[in-house]
């Protein structure tokens, strides 16, 4: 039995280590190729053991800081503004829904929940935002569509409020003469810190990684986030690749070199991976809470 146990443990560890490697190695390849010299990349392709290391790509990026510096700045601005607005909206919406004595609460809940079941899809959303609200090529285009508030987070937050903030606590505060706003800010929010930080993390990650709003609504390169820069470089490669088949002329070599593209991808991922170890606990907890039923 004991022997058998040991074998099983070893098997489980082996499988999980292999899966872990699967998760990590592709990043390593990305990372290493950004540190490979351009010659080695062209000669030998992407490799875990490049023949020649080089930091030329990062030097190039540093010398052309305006190329990605601005995109980086936009990403940070959008992430910060978006996350703050999203948290405010979500909390303000979730809190009243968590109060059992609010009349018409169920109707409002349904109003939110229904958006999870049915939606208008891309075409009407796009046409409305562009033609009615004119958000094309504005900051709003990056922040507002689809990311600002979603039913899933509202329900998650509401569930947290209902199950963690005891009613008697709020009643007591009311008897002490505190208004609803005061109760929310001074009583409920401090008690909900863990959930709020988890939510902030998830929303922030969503904004940091978003490239679709930029693709739909932004054509002005001054508003590109780092993800949009990456996305556009891919579109250009694909355009050149398809047109060079026809013309046989224009080559991919005219674009930022392969190494530089990889370096930009690394730079886009880097902050997330750096911050991740510090937040993994609350992120994992958030997934565990939010995953099931919200």
């Amino acid at each position, binding site marked *: 039995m004991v022997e058998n146990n040991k074998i*099983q*443990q070893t098997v*489980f*560890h082996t*499988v*999980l280590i292999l*899966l*872990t490697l699967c*998760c*990590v190695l*592709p990043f390593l*390849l*990305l990372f290493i190729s950004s540190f490979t010299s351009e010659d080695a*990349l062209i000669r*030998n*392709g*992407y*490799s875990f053991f490049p023949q020649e290391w080089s930091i030329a790509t990062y030097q190039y990026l540093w010398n052309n800081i305006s190329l990605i510096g601005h995109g980086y700045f936009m990403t940070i601005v959008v992430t910060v503004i978006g996350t703050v607005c999203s948290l*405010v*909206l979500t909390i303000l*919406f979730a*809190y*009243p829904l968590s*109060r059992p004595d*609010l*009349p018409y609460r169920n109707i409002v809940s349904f*109003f*939110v929940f229904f*958006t999870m079941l*049915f939606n*208008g*899809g*891309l*075409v*009407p*959303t796009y*046409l*409305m935002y562009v*033609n009615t609200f004119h958000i094309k090529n504005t900051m709003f285009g990056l922040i507002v569509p689809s990311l600002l*508030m979603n039913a899933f987070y*509202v329900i998650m937050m509401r569930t947290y409020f209902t199950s963690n903030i005891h009613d008697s606590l709020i009643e007591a505060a009311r008897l002490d003469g505190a208004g609803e706003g005061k109760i929310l800010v001074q009583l409920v929010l401090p008690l909900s810190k863990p959930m709020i930080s988890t939510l902030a993390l998830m929303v922030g*990650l969503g904004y*940091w990684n978003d*490239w679709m709003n930029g693709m739909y609504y932004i054509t002005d390169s001054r508003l590109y986030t780092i993800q949009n820069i*990456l996305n556009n470089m*891919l579109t250009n490669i*694909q355009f050149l690749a398809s047109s060079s088949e026809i013309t046989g002329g224009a080559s991919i070599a005219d674009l930022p070199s*392969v190494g530089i593209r*990889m370096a930009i*991808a690394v730079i*886009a991922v880097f902050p*997330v991976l750096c911050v*991740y170890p510090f937040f993994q606990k609350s*992120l*994992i907890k958030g*997934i*565990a*809470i939010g995953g*099931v*039923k919200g």
Partner: protein
Amino acid sequence: MKKHATAIKKDREWQKFRYKRNRILYLMLLPGTIYLIINNYIPMAGLQLAFKKYDYAQGMWKSPWAGFSNFVYLFKTKDAWLMTRNTICYNAAFIALGTLLAVTVAIMLNELKNRLAKNIYQIFILIPYLISMVVVSYIGYAFLATDAGFLNHVTGGSTNWYGTPGAWPFILVVIYLWKSFGYNSIIYYATVIGIDGSLYEAATIDGATRWQRIKHVTLPGLKGTILTLVLLAIGKIFYSDFGLFYRVPMNSGLLYDATMTIDVYVYRGLTQLNDIGRSSAAGFYQSMLCFAVILTANAIVRKIDRENALF
């Protein structure tokens, strides 16, 4: 009598107080309500565009009606069948394989004795979840590029992966699993931890082996979560991750047969082909099918097991 009067007065004050309090609560609901109306409900109303002939000058609301012509036009092409088939088949594969992998990993995590190792595995398997599909495309490109790609480099081949549709069902499933299994494993693992420990003890006392415990305690404990997550996934069976099907294959025309899902079709129609009629018809088709599927799936689950239904 006096007592009664004060009671009424008190009651009235209470009513007034309640009204004032609720007014503040409703005020809190206002910004979110406005956002949901704009972001979700107006586009729902905008679905009517599928029955209109879109006119740029007149916009979404004032364009003239066109009956079912957009749909006729859409379903005449082979695209309609292709994108429906792709969307459903990929999602079916994702649901089946994704659930299998995630549940297996969750159970393995639970069976491990070493706490530190458990935590480390959890941290690492979540990493792919943290990055955007654009970055995934770059990693994919590093593996699949024809001249410099890792795959061709290692195998010594010179396959043009971005021109080989046959390989993409496999590639896309692998990438999907790679990106999502950590996230789902953690959800299942959280449920496994929540299973009452005394059940395991009882099973062990009864002489159950590890596999018997997994089969008779862990899996039944996971049933509810599996049902809920599968139900949610089935509800989205007509949706696809746009980035996975458009960005990762580099929007390569040679791959359309293998990569075109409804979302890709709608996007391409809207922005590249300027075919708003067919695009909005496809969007309408998607929204309606999805709504019908989620209601049906939920009704079935409700019948089997009320507790795990969504609503």
